[in-house]
């Protein structure tokens, strides 16, 4: 199959193939103009100073237009059974399984459906709930202008879950989404809308096998929490080691909204993610937990922002990073407190565990505080596996690899305990064990 580059014609072709309404086609075309107008990020840009993307052959990867899917909703490729089966075995309110952005399975419990909950793929949402999507899609949270890769995503996005929970509804049991990549190019979009007083738990898995050549994931995540809502969102990224990932992810929280966001990143060749919480309403509260484990020559770069835009807001970030071999992690975090955001509590901590002398962790915490009645702390540590801990465990009969495995599992436990879904937790634990 001949690959096409990122062009205006390609945008038209994709939109026509997906049979989209005119507004979405126009939106994509406008975004593509933004993409063309923005320079490619380079090491001279502050946000990209530690992440070199020059080896990325973006144009030869190109967009995913139709691939091997004859028409929307009838894909040929299925994800491997061992990837899907554990998800189906869990108790969930609904499951969405996609391959390269096309849906192979989509279920939602009758009970949730009857309460007006929508859980489907983004294209179905655009076709059937156009106004609802249109009023939220890439407007409040991640506009195409957020960056070069946000604009590219806006022009070529494909697939991803749409979750809408109407006012006052508690969706209860978790909703689960899996995006399996087989064609080396994914552009999934996650959009969550919780209306006043709604509650939900969403777990998304991004997975692929290691393929040949460079692969791309250019995603966006938008979490929109109206007043008095509560969302637990767990994102598990386990791409093959040939994937270059670029994502823009942002949550907006209304009055007394509460967000718990777990970010697990263990796959990809290189990953650059912008993750932001906007505490817009008084009393809003967000906790962000990162669980990152890299090996080989992986490079994981997370750029986080906790923006306190209203009084009495709380944010708490804890990123735990373990690194093997020649892998590298960059975490750059900022807490911003606007003048109006009095009585704010903002915390951030980044703990790095280096399991090899050749691994490297850069940790850049930051505070920008314009209000005077605030409590903010930040801290970062970089350390090796504690030899005294390893010796202690060995003195009880554990061979060194088992001792190290237990120390690393212990290191991640603080974050792991925050994963609200048992199935996701087991999957993460297994992934950690494999990596050690």
């Amino acid at each position, binding site marked *: 199959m001949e690959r096409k580059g990122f062009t205006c014609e390609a945008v038209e072709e994709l939109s026509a193939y997906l049979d989209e309404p005119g507004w979405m086609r126009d939106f994509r075309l406008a975004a593509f103009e933004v993409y063309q107008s923005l320079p490619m990020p380079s090491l001279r840009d502050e946000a990209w100073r530690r992440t070199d993307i020059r080896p990325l052959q973006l144009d030869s990867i190109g967009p995913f237009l139709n691939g091997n899917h004859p028409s929307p909703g009838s894909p040929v490729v299925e994800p491997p059974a061992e990837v899907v089966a554990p998800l189906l075995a869990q108790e969930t309110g609904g499951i969405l399984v996609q391959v390269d952005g096309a849906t192979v399975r989509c279920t939602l419990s009758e009970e949730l459906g009857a309460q007006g909950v929508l859980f489907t793929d983004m294209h179905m949402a655009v076709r059937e709930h156009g106004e609802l999507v249109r009023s939220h899609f890439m407007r409040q949270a991640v506009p195409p202008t957020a960056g070069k890769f946000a604009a590219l995503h806006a022009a070529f996005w494909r697939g991803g879950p749409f979750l809408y929970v109407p006012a006052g509804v508690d969706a209860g049991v978790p909703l689960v989404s899996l995006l399996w990549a087989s064609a080396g190019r994914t552009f999934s979009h996650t959009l969550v809308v919780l209306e006043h007083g709604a509650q939900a738990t969403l777990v998304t898995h991004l997975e692929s096998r290691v393929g040949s050549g460079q692969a791309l994931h250019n995603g966006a995540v938008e979490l929109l929490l109206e007043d008095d809502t509560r969302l637990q969102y767990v994102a598990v990224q386990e791409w093959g080691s040939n994937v270059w990932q670029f994502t823009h992810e942002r949550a907006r929280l209304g009055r007394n909204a509460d967000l718990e966001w777990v970010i697990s990143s263990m796959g990809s060749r290189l990953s650059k993610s912008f993750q932001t919480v906007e505490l817009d309403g008084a009393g809003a509260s967000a906790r962000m937990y990162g669980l990152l484990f890299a090996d080989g020559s992986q490079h994981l770069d997370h750029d986080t922002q906790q923006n306190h835009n209203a009084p009495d807001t709380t944010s708490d970030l804890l990123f735990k990073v373990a690194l093997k071999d020649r892998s590298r992690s960059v975490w750059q975090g900022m807490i911003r407190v606007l003048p109006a955001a009095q009585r704010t509590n903002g915390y951030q901590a980044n703990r790095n565990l280096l399991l090899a002398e050749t691994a490297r962790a850069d940790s850049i915490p930051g505070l920008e505080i314009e209000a005077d009645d605030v409590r903010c702390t930040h801290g970062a540590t970089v350390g090796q596996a*504690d030899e005294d801990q390893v010796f202690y465990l060995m003195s*009880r009969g554990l061979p060194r690899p088992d001792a190290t495995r237990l*120390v690393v599992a212990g290191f991640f436990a603080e974050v792991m305990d925050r994963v609200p879904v048992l199935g996701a937790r087991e999957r993460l634990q297994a992934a950690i064990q494999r990596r050690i």
Partner: protein
Amino acid sequence: MRVFDSRLWLCYNAAARWAMERQRKRYGDVHAMLQVRNLHVSVDGQPILKGVNLVVRQGEIHALMGPNGSGKSTLAKALMGHPGYEVTAGEVTFKGQNLLEMAPDERSRRGLFLAFQYPVAIPGVSLANFLRTAINVRRKAADPDDKGLPIPEFRRFLKAKMDLLQMDHRFAGRYLNDGFSGGEKKRAEALQLAVLEPDIAVLDETDSGLDIDALRVVSEGVNALAGPDLGMLVITHYQRILNYIKPHFVHIMLDGEIVESGGPELALKLEERGYTWLEGKQNGRGSG
């Protein structure tokens, strides 16, 4: 008759071999479980142990006493194989095999145990999870096909051991030594001793940092474990733990050497007269 004789002989032979094998499995070399000969150990290039000789057999309780800095804890850590403790001369055999060639985990799996003076915390790893892992690596080493101790069986086993040490069962769910009080740490060490069932245990200053009540509970626990199958080396600065754990032998260490060995009366003598009467006994200069 000749046929009968030969059968009897074969029978006897097989029985004797079976008994010996059983004994070896159970006790290894029964005559010298842990044998330390002329052990020299340096830390950061600084000689600390200067020729230690000691034999501890199963069923025996030895007390090793001495002032701070005399090298007692160095002996404990060197026996367990801490990488920071360099053996520069001498030998240590355990059940007839060279202990010094073994990695710490192998020493443990062969039946040596060290109750640490300062147990390290391992946040995120529960005591129960850790103990189950420790039991399972032992089973795996003995039988590579072992699937591990079933969880219900492990729970029953652990609860019984915790009861022995008068420990609240909820303790098993806490992270290993993380935020434990001094007494809790020592009790957790005693629990590990009870669970791992070693042949020889070294208790490094198990009494330090304990109030009288905690000392009594831990000592009673240790006493409950003592018996013909367990040899113990109780390292202590003070005599008071020996009010609870009665040693068969007492050794006194000064400046990296054992300068005096004797029966329980030696501890009392030390209590009365302090360490000063032993000065000048190093390097064979003393009268012994």
